[in-house]
C-alpha cells in the first residue's frame, strides 16, 4: 500500500487560508455609516465627486433618507441635475415627511426649469406616508378585520360591539389603503432622465429617429423594456430611451 502524498492536505489548507484572506476585505468593508461620514467630510472639503461616490456606496449598502439627501446635494454641486433630482426623489420615497428633500426638489426644478412628475390622485395619496407603510397597513388592517369578525365565533365568545367596531375599522383602513397601495405600485415605475439632452427615440434602436430631446431631471414613466431600451412616457411624449439614461426610483422593480 502506497502512502498518499501530503499535497492534497496542504492544498486544502492553502485554499482555506486563501478563502479566509479573500473574505477578509468583505468583512472589513466600510459600513454605511462610515461611508456616510466620509461623504460628509468630502462634501465639506468641497470634493463633491468623492462625496457623491461615498454617499452612493452608502446608499447602495443600505438606503437611507439622509444619505440620499446628501447624495442629491453632492450631485447638484457637481452640476449633475438628473442624478440630484433622482436622489432627492428617492429620499422622499423613503421619508416623505422630510422637508429638506421637498425643498431641494422645488429649488432644483425652479433653477433648471423642470416639471415635477404628474401624479394621479391615488399616487398623491401614496405620498402621504412612506411607501413601505401602505403594504403593512393594508395587510394588517385586512387581517385585523378578519380576526375581529371571525375569532369570537370560533372561540364561542359572544360578539360584542367592539368586535364589530374593530372589524369595521379594519375594513375601512384596508379600503383606504388600497388606492395608495396601487399608487405605490405605479409610482415605482417613475424614473428621471440622467444625462442632459437625452434623445427620445421612435424605436428601440440606436439608429432610430429622435422624437425629441429630454432635459436632465425630466420625469418619465416606464411602460416596458426591450433589450437596452425602455419605453417611457415623458410629459407629453412617448418614446424609447436607453436604460442607462434613466434613473428609476426603484432600481430593482421592472
Amino acid at each position, binding site marked *: 500500500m502506497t502512502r498518499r502524498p501530503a499535497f492534497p492536505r496542504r492544498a486544502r489548507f492553502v485554499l482555506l487560508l486563501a478563502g479566509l484572506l479573500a473574505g477578509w476585505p468583505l468583512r472589513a468593508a466600510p459600513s454605511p455609516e462610515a461611508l*456616510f461620514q466620509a461623504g*460628509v467630510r468630502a462634501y465639506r472639503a*468641497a470634493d463633491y465627486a468623492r462625496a457623491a461616490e461615498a454617499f452612493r456606496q452608502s446608499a447602495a449598502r443600505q*438606503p437611507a433618507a*439622509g444619505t440620499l439627501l446628501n447624495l442629491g*446635494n453632492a450631485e*447638484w454641486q457637481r452640476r449633475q441635475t438628473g442624478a440630484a433630482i433622482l436622489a432627492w426623489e428617492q429620499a422622499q420615497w423613503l421619508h416623505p415627511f422630510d422637508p429638506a428633500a421637498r425643498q431641494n426638489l422645488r429649488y432644483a426644478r425652479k433653477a433648471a426649469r423642470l416639471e415635477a412628475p404628474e401624479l394621479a390622485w391615488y399616487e398623491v395619496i401614496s405620498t402621504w406616508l412612506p411607501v413601505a407603510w401602505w*403594504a403593512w397597513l393594508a395587510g394588517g388592517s385586512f387581517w385585523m378585520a378578519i380576526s375581529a369578525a371571525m375569532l369570537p365565533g370560533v372561540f364561542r365568545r359572544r360578539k360584542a360591539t367592539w368586535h364589530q367596531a374593530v372589524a369595521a375599522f379594519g375594513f375601512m383602513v384596508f379600503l383606504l389603503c388600497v388606492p395608495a397601495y396601487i399608487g405605490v405600485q405605479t409610482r415605482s415605475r417613475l424614473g428621471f432622465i440622467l444625462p442632459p439632452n437625452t434623445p427620445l427615440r421612435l424605436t428601440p434602436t440606436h439608429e432610430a429617429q429622435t422624437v425629441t430631446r429630454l432635459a436632465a431631471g425630466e420625469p418619465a414613466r416606464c411602460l416596458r423594456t426591450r433589450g437596452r431600451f425602455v419605453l417611457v412616457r415623458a410629459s407629453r411624449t412617448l418614446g424609447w430611451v436607453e436604460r442607462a439614461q434613466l434613473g428609476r426610483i426603484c432600481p430593482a*422593480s421592472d
Partner: protein
Amino acid sequence: MTARLLFSPDMKLKRQVRLPGGGGERGRKMLSLLAGGLIAAAAPLAAQTNAAPSRDPLMSLMLSQPRLEIPALTTATAEFDPPVVRPGEPSFLRVTFNALEDSVEWPATIAGPPGLELRPGAHGQMLKVSGVNFEPYTAFNTRAQAARPGAFVVPEFVVRINGQPVTVPSARLEVAATVPASVPPRLPLTLELPRTNLFVGQAVMARMVLAGRPGNAIHGLAQPQLTGPGFLVDGTTSRQRVEAVTQNGGSVLSFIYETTFIPLTAGRLTVQAQGFMASSRLSPPAASPGATVIPPPIVQYTLIESDPLELNVRPLPREGELPGFTGAIGHFRIGPPQLGTNALRVGEPVNLTVTLTNYGDAPLARVTPPPPPQTRDWQVFATADFAPVQPIGPPPPSAPPHAGAPPPSPELHGVLTFSYILIPLTETATATPPIPFSYYDPRRGAYADLTIPGVPVKVKVGAAPGDYASLARAAATEADPEKAPELSRLADARGRTASSLTPPQQRAWFPLVQLAPAAAFLGIWAWDRRRRYQEAHPDVVRRRRARRALRRQRRLLRRAARAADAPRFAAAAVNALRTACAPHYPAEPRALVGGDVLPLLPATGPSDRAGEVVRRFFAATDAARFSPNPASVAELLSLQPELEQVLAALEEKL
C-alpha cells in the same frame, strides 16, 4: 405748357421753360411768377445738394489702411529657440509662414528624432507691415525637450497651405552640458495668477510678464492672450505697462500685461499665455550724397508662450448662500449708504449711493450690484451707471469704514459705487428698505452678509397723485412673494433607513408573509369544524377513546405476560375487555361485568371458546377481589393467545 426742373450731374439747378404757341404777355407774366415760386422753393434743396458729399469716416479709415498682401510664394522658416539648451531644458521649434493661419494645414504631430520629445505648443497669426502693405505672419510652436546631450535634427517636412505643398526646412537643436555665452537665452514669458485654487466665477487678475534683457532692453508683447478651455477673459479690464522687476538679484525692465481671468467650469484647468514678442532692429544708415539717411527700424515678431499653469477650480457651495448674492467673490466691505436727503415727501425720488470697497485681489469690474428689493412702502430702481474706481492705496475719504470696523489693509484694490433711486409710496415709511447683498469669501470658505442697511427718513404727505395708492397696493402684493426655495443643508445623520428602495409588495417574501395569517385562520377554521363534528357525534369520540384505552391495556397485559405476573395480567385483560365493550352500551367500563361482555363476542361455534376465556378471566379477577382465599391465576397466562383473539375481535367492532 410744361415746366421742368432739371438737375445737372453737378447738382446745379437749371430752369427750362417752354411756351407753346408763342403765348401772350399775361401768359409770360404768369409763367415768370410760377417759375419764380418754383425756384424759390427749390433754393434750399439746391443749397443742400450743392454741398460736397462727405465720406463715411469709418470707410475712410478703412480705405486709408494698408492693403493685406498675401505673397504669391509662401515661404516657411524653422528654428529652435534657443538653439542650444542643457539636457532637460525646453526649447521651442518655431515654424513661421507668410500665410494666413487658417490656410495652413498643420499636422497634429511632428516626427522628430529619437530622444527628442515634441509636443504641440502655441500658434497664432498677426499682420506685419511690409513696405506699404500688411503681410500675414503665422507661427506654430512645438515644445521640444531632450534628456540627453546631443544634436537633434528635425527633418524637413511638407505642410499644405491653401492646398499647395510647402516644405518646412529642417531645424537643429544642440543639447549640451554647457551653453555658450554667445547663445542668447530664451526670453521667458511668465503667466502669474494670484492663486491656483479658484471658484467658478471668481475673477482674478492674470499677469503676463515678459522680462527684458539685462541692459534695460524692453520688448513689447503684441496680441497677448490666454489659451485653454473653460475660462473667460474680460478684455475690457486689460492694461499693460512697463515695470522694473527684480530678477536674479538685479532689476530689469519688463513688459507687463494684466487682464481679468474668470474660470467658468469646475475641475482642473490648464491655462497658457502666448503673444508675439516685438523687437526692433536698426538698419545701418545709408549714406547718400549730401545727407545720411537713417532707415526706420525693422520690427520682428516672435511667437512666445508661457509654461502651462494648472488650476483647480471648484464650484461655489450652494450651502449657506445668503440673500442678495450676485456672484461677488472676494473680500469686500460696504460703506454707510448716503441718502440725498432724509426729509422726503411721498412720491419724491431720492438718490441712495453706496460704496463697495474691495479688500481682496479680485477685480471689481465683474461685481454686479444687488437687485432692488420689493417692499411695501418703497419703489426702488437701480441706476445703470455705477462707477468702478480702481485706486491702489488707502480707501478714499468718501468710503469711510463702518464704526468699529478694522482699519483697511494695504491690500485695498478699488472702490465701486452703487446708486439706487428710491420713491416713498406712503408716509408711514420711517427708513429706507435694506437691500440684501452678500458675497462669497474664499478665505473663510463661507458667504458673508453685506446687506445695505436702511437709512432713517421722515416722509411727509406730498402732493402725490391718487395713483400712488394703487402703486402702494401693488408694491404690497409684490413685497410678499413666495419664499424662494434654496438648497438645504447637509443632513448630519442617515435618518430613516430601509433594506431596499423596492416597496414590500414587490418583494418575493411579502406574499408568503401575507399567507401566514391566512394559514393560521384556515387552521383555526378546520379545528372549529372538527370540534363541532365531534360534538354532534359523541359515539365517535367514545369509540376513539375506547380504542386508545384498549391499546394501552393490551400493552399492559403483554408486559405482564412477559413478566409472568399473572395477577396483573388478569386485571389488565379484564380492563381491556371492559374498555372494548363500554362504547356499545354506552357505559362506564368499570361498571361492566362478564355478562355484559359475552353478548358482544363474535359467535365462535358450539364450543364457545371465546366465552369460556372471558368467563375464566372475570371469575379469576372476581375471586381475587372478593374471595377470602383466592385461587391461583397463574394458569391464565396460558390463555393469552385466545385472549388476544377475543380482544382483536372486539377492537374490530369499535
